[in-house]
């Protein structure tokens, strides 16, 4: 094989492998348990001072899915139906709550080259400012691993309505939450189909 052909072959193979690296994630859904450490939340009185309840230094888990829409964009689904603590409300809730690509003021993107990649989630709010998290991911067959990630948000940021203590809006204090390293498992489901199933992006 000539030198020129070898180079051409490597270029083609590189293109194919590069492309397949992307296509492994495009239109796939991955599920896992995301542990979050360093939860420091306190509810507030109207004057802004700390009130009951508070939860400091805790570590807890969330049932999440990652929806990779295409070669660039992703979103996160919190699985309400696997969550056990919401009493009768669960019957009236969606199966999952989506946040990510497609939402206004949200920019959730990823890049994958070969088996390794990066991801970035940014949300902007006129009042609260920017909150974001970003990290690395590694793909190995049906396992996807996301690295330890620190959530970043303005210190004055209230967590959104899904993170309340006794129905109170809570302020995060002290150290920021840390998303532990997580292994995600590939499912047979696809965002292109799941998006039209009632209960994820629409009410059931």
């Amino acid at each position: 094989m000539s030198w020129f052909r070898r180079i051409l072959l490597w270029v083609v193979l590189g293109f194919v492998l590069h492309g397949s690296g992307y296509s492994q994630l495009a239109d796939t859904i991955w599920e896992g348990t995301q542990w979050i450490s360093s939860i420091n939340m306190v509810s507030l009185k109207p004057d802004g001072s700390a009130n009951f309840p508070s939860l400091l230094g805790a570590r807890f888990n969330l049932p999440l899915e990652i929806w990779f829409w295409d070669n660039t964009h992703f979103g996160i689904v919190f699985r309400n139906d696997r969550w056990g603590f919401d009493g009768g409300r669960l019957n009236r809730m969606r199966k999952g709550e989506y946040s990510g690509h497609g939402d206004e003021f949200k920019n959730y993107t990823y890049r994958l080259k070969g088996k390794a990649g990066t991801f970035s989630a940014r949300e902007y709010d006129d009042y609260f400012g920017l909150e974001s998290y970003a990290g690395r991911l590694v793909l190995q067959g049906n396992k996807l691993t996301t690295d330890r990630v620190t959530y970043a948000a303005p210190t004055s940021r209230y967590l959104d309505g899904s993170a309340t203590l006794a129905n109170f809006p809570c302020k995060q204090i002290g150290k920021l939450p840390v998303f532990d390293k997580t292994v995600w498992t590939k499912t047979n489901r696809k965002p292109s189909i799941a998006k039209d199933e009632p209960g994820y992006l629409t009410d059931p």
Partner: protein
Amino acid sequence: MITTTPRPINPHHPGTLVRRIVLGGVLAFAFGCPGHAQLADTIWEGTQVIRNVNVQGMRDRLLMDYPVVIGGRTSFPFEIWFWDETHFGIVFRNDRFDPARNSRKGEYEGWDYNNSEPEFSRSFTYTLRSGKGTFLGRNLRLANSPWGWGYAGQMSQYSGKFSVKGSKLTTQKVVLLTDSWDLQTGQAYEDPANPGEYFAQRFDGVRFIGNKYPVFENTVWTKTNRKPSLAKDEPGYLTDP
């Protein structure tokens, strides 16, 4: 009318030492008893910090994979109601925890002062001597809950030491003992077919997990001007508002 004039004390008289000892004994007794009287019919308020909170979600009595909370530290607004020289109870102040919730001001658990709960054997007692004391709270369920939220033989107990100094009362680390500790969040509903009969639609809540139970940290409680003998009749504590 008889009047007496106190004799001047001769410090060198042999009887003076005896008098002093007697006086000391009387004073010690007098101060020892008010130790009890300091607490009888008083209410003390404070914020109880609890750490090592390890809980797992329950839905319909089944442990769920989510949420699991490990190693949290939280705080609750409590009151201690000292009914008399022996008995006490604890009031969880709903209104300080969640003012938006339409519920009682407080939820009482403790000495069954009017024998209103025959399905429980409750022993909430304390002793106090010279500013130092011990307490023990024990719940034993004698019958299955008709709402499905407890079973006969279910027991929980906590005990510890405390000290009193003026209007400050300090409880030390509390030791918990229980076979299983669940906090339910479900509600009981009246059976439409049988008015007056209640059933639990579903048992949801959390179960304390792991080998270590929560640790109640040392807490300083402040004496209030309120009294259990009066507060018990205020709507919203022991009765619905």
